[in-house]
């Protein structure tokens, strides 16, 4: 393409070559191979109207996240009348992810904002359950990432651990645990995000917290490493402390807006209520 344009400009004056350049890319003569036709969902909204571009985009993302949170909450508050059965932590995480993924595919979101579920090994190595990424337009490289780790209520987690203790652990999981033995999962995720930079956030997603077991909360920050300096270790108590005594929480929409409007290299920490 570049080749062709420079050939043209060598034959004509600069001015007309500029005009021909304009013509080549003029939207007045739409041709199928150059102009992406509006599609359903987010792409259509991205193309028309351009003024609301990013606000619409953030709204669609946050709608998908809210939708998944609401669905997950239904299962979170579920109680077996006989008190015998309860969904495992893993099931709740899966419900969230499945609902979110289905929704984001329906909304045609995945080209611009994708969600990568971690493999079991990655979950241990990086401490994340999944990673959201805002993708740069032509390259599809991540521009901003949110690594998410789900935290479950302690009693639910203990029940899971008891069940897991009876099952054999695969060799590669043992190796992953061995590789990461010096840090807990919170620290691993913070390390992972810090190694990428300020455009990678860690989001600890609480499926219920101690004083409100029926709602979903989150602590999001690109600056957890600051806590590493102050405290010996990052643990659940430290992260849950961010949520203590707060009256005002961000909404998922507020979270996405804050991420989008933040300046590069700025620190950002938010507490969010998802359900």
């Amino acid at each position: 393409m570049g080749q062709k344009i420079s050939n043209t400009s060598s034959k004509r004056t600069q001015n007309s070559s500029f005009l021909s350049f304009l013509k080549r890319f003029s939207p007045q003569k739409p041709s199928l191979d150059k102009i992406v036709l509006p599609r359903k969902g987010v792409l259509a909204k991205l193309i028309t109207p351009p003024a609301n571009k990013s606000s619409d985009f953030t709204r669609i993302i946050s709608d998908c996240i809210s939708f998944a949170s609401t669905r997950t909450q239904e299962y979170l508050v579920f109680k077996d009348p006989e008190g015998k059965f309860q969904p495992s932590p893993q099931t709740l995480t899966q419900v969230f992810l499945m609902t979110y993924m289905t929704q984001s595919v329906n909304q045609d979101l995945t080209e611009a904002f994708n969600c990568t579920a971690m493999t079991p090994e990655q979950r241990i190595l990086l401490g994340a359950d999944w990673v959201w990424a805002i993708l740069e337009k032509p390259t599809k490289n991540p521009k901003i990432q949110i690594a998410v780790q789900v935290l479950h209520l302690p009693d639910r987690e203990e029940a899971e651990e008891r069940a897991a203790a009876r099952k054999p652990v695969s060799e590669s999981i043992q190796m992953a645990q061995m590789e990461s033995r010096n840090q807990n999962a919170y620290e691993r995720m913070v390390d992972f995000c810090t190694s990428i930079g300020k455009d990678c956030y860690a989001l600890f997603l609480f499926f219920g917290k101690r004083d409100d077991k029926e709602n979903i909360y989150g602590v999001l920050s690109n600056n957890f490493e600051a806590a590493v300096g102050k405290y010996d270790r990052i643990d659940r108590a430290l992260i849950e402390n961010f949520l203590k005594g707060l009256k005002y929480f961000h909404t998922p929409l507020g979270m996405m807006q804050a991420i989008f409007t933040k300046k590069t290299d700025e620190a950002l920490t938010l507490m969010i209520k998802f359900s």
Partner: protein
Amino acid sequence: MELYGKMAATQDVKGKGEGGDQNFDYMFKLLIIGNSSVGKTSFLFRYADDAFTSAFVSTVGIDFKVKTVYKNDKRIKLQIWDTAGQERYRTITTAYYRGAMGFILMYDITNEESFGAVQDWSTQIKTYSWDNAQVVLAGNKCDMEEERVVSVDSGRLLAEQLGFEFFETSAKDNINVKQTFERLVDLICDKMSESLDTDPAVTTGAPTTKLTDSAPPLQQPGCNC
């Protein structure tokens, strides 16, 4: 901890296990590196699970798989690390170079830029890994002959200049995938027996080094290959 402990114990008695439940004789840590989208994940997926998918899911950070191979009656466990090629993960991926015994450095024969980056990747190996690490250069996607922009000869020449072995491969059509890993294992085994010959500490039967990430077991007995 347990796995490494067992391995070290096995080596202390020169390859003869103390009986019981250990399930391998050696463990090699291998890394696959190269630009994003050259096919590293696909290559490992083909080797470990004999599968291929054409959808592209760019790797986040790092991942690994385990595969056991047999060589001269020895069970060799390969811990194969699949690194993310994207620049933003460079800090985390290079942290895993330490202690790697072998690298597969991959480019895409249909992508000039990925070939141009080979030199830089090779420098990364020199900077972050240990001197005796073995490297195989792999020109992947050789099934896409029509879209080829890097000739076999320029691949081979570059490998020679860098002192690496060379294969053209296809994760899609399963060409030279197994061969690439087998060659890398052979090279590591050769290196191990070489240092066994030259290191007096080993021949006098005083293997004291504890096996850790930073001290690969090269000065330990070789794998008889």
